[in-house]
């Protein structure tokens, strides 16, 4: 039998689900090397479909745990979709990473298969890591300039101009008090870290206090957050961070007469079908706004309203996060569980009930190695978790 041309093998291989590729590394030595080859890594990434990561932890009374990242691959076809909750799931268990022992981790953004992880526990450990669950590599980012601060928000993205991966964080620093109460008592600042450079850079002041409960949503070389305190007269309650210029800016918000900017509403950002979206949630109802043309205020469009009547059984949490809009039109969202909204039948279905401490975010598996950030001084480790059943 004649061997297939390498180009063909690479092409077929790059279209397989990440799980299968990892599995297939065992087929032969050639394939094993192929998976770490940059031409394969780039081809695979250009085709890698959006998946989900569910971060699950079993925090119980008196104990904390860094949690497990579980991958849910989405089969997204024009006429149907399927979510693969595998048994056993493809997962990365932070409990097997000694540095995370008895600690809490938060996911602070994901781009091109890399995930930014923030470790924090009762003010002691306070580190940022980058990990690739597929290659099972992890590296620690050097200590910040400003340590004893209250972290406000995180963002993690890549500049398409330079290919640089950047972590940005904003934080609040207490101002020294002279005994008399005078305002302001604290100042907002920002720092940025370019992967591979070995040190954080100060960006000076951050202009707005951001909603840090969700990491910055990345689209068009910008991280986006909801602003929680700003000049209310502007009514532009989105702030962006330009990953190329490294500047913060206010960004057009849906028309203020149409979207209530009041306390009982909870707003969160997402990217659906390459468009920036806002989820405007109130009691038993939420509205999805889509910005059809990026940066154009007039293009904000009310996409869909999901009310209690069509969403029987939804656990209504204030923080509804939109996940993805699939090719068949289904919108996935998280509110106490993973839900699907089917626009054609205007119905909502529960896909998976979550534990209270579970979160989910979109993720594109990649074989991008952290070894690419050569000059990184921090450790790079291959995590070797304990035994789990093998599927063969």
């Amino acid at each position, binding site marked *: 039998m004649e061997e297939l041309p390498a180009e*063909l093998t690479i092409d077929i291989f790059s279209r397989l689900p990440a799980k*299968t590729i990892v599995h297939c590394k065992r087929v032969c030595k050639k394939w094993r090397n192929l998976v770490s080859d940059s031409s394969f890594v780039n081809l695979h990434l250009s085709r890698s479909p959006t998946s989900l990561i569910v971060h699950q932890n079993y925090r119980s009374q008196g104990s904390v745990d860094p949690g497990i990242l579980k991958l849910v691959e989405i089969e997204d076809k024009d006429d149907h979709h399927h979510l693969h909750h595998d048994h056993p799931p493809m997962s*990365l268990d932070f409990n097997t990473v000694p540095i995370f022992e008895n600690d809490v981790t938060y996911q602070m953004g994901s781009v091109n298969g890399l995930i930014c992880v923030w470790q924090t526990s009762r003010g002691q450990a306070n580190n940022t890591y980058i990990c690739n669950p597929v290659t099972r590599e992890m590296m620690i980012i050097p200590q910040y300039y400003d340590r004893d601060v209250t972290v406000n928000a995180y963002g993690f993205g890549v500049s398409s101009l330079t290919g640089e991966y950047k972590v940005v964080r904003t934080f609040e620093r207490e101002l020294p008090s002279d005994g008399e109460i005078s305002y302001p008592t604290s100042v907002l600042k920002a720092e940025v870290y370019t992967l591979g450079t070995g040190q954080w850079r100060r960006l000076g002041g951050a202009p707005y206090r951001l909603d840090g409960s969700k990491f910055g949503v990345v689209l068009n070389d910008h991280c986006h957050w909801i602003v929680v305190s700003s000049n209310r007269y502007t009514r532009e309650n989105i702030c962006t961070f330009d990953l190329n210029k490294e500047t913060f800016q206010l960004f057009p918000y849906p028309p203020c007469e149409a979207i209530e900017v009041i306390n009982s509403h909870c707003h969160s950002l997402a990217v659906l079908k390459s468009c920036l979206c806002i989820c405007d949630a109130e009691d038993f109802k939420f509205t999805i706004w889509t910005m059809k043309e990026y940066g154009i205020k007039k293009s904000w469009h009310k996409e869909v309203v999901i009310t209690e009547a069509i969403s029987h059984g939804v656990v209504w949490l204030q923080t509804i996060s939109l996940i993805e809009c699939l090719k068949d039109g289904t919108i996935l969202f998280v509110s106490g569980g993973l839900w699907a909204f089917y626009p054609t039948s205007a119905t909502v279905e529960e896909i998976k009930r979550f534990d209270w401490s579970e979160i989910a975010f979109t993720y594109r598996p990649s074989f991008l190695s952290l070894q690419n950030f050569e000059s990184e001084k921090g450790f790079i480790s291959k995590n070797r978790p304990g035994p789990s059943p093998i599927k063969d």
Partner: protein
Amino acid sequence: MSKKTLTLMSKDKQLFNIEEHLAVQSVTIRNMVKEDGASSVIPLPRVDSETLALVIEYLNRQQAPEEDEDYVKKFVDERGEIPTLLELAQAALDLDIKKLMDAACMKVADLIKDFTLEEVREALRIENDRTPEEEKAIRDEFQWAF
């Protein structure tokens, strides 16, 4: 003016005629035509006659552009056997017909994604170049499923 016809010759020396304006969907043929007019027979030493017949059928399709995607998908779906699809993909690679190659590779990937290692090896004609000891070492390393 009559349309110009090209002749393609398969590995097993069979001749196929095709109108030039359809044949030049293949970038390889387009370049040959540009270079020397390709008046004589174009030999395709890696494509057998069965596969070439399929390629010709594909190139001769009369689809409206907006229906083309669906047509290509259906075209490869109807040839659901992995060996046929691999031959087709290889011919599309040699002839540089991107759409056909993409669709054929996608279909193969779809078919093999749930295969066992042995089945993948067999389907993609790969020899196992590991010793049983190496197999075991790798199996230990890849115990996790992620």
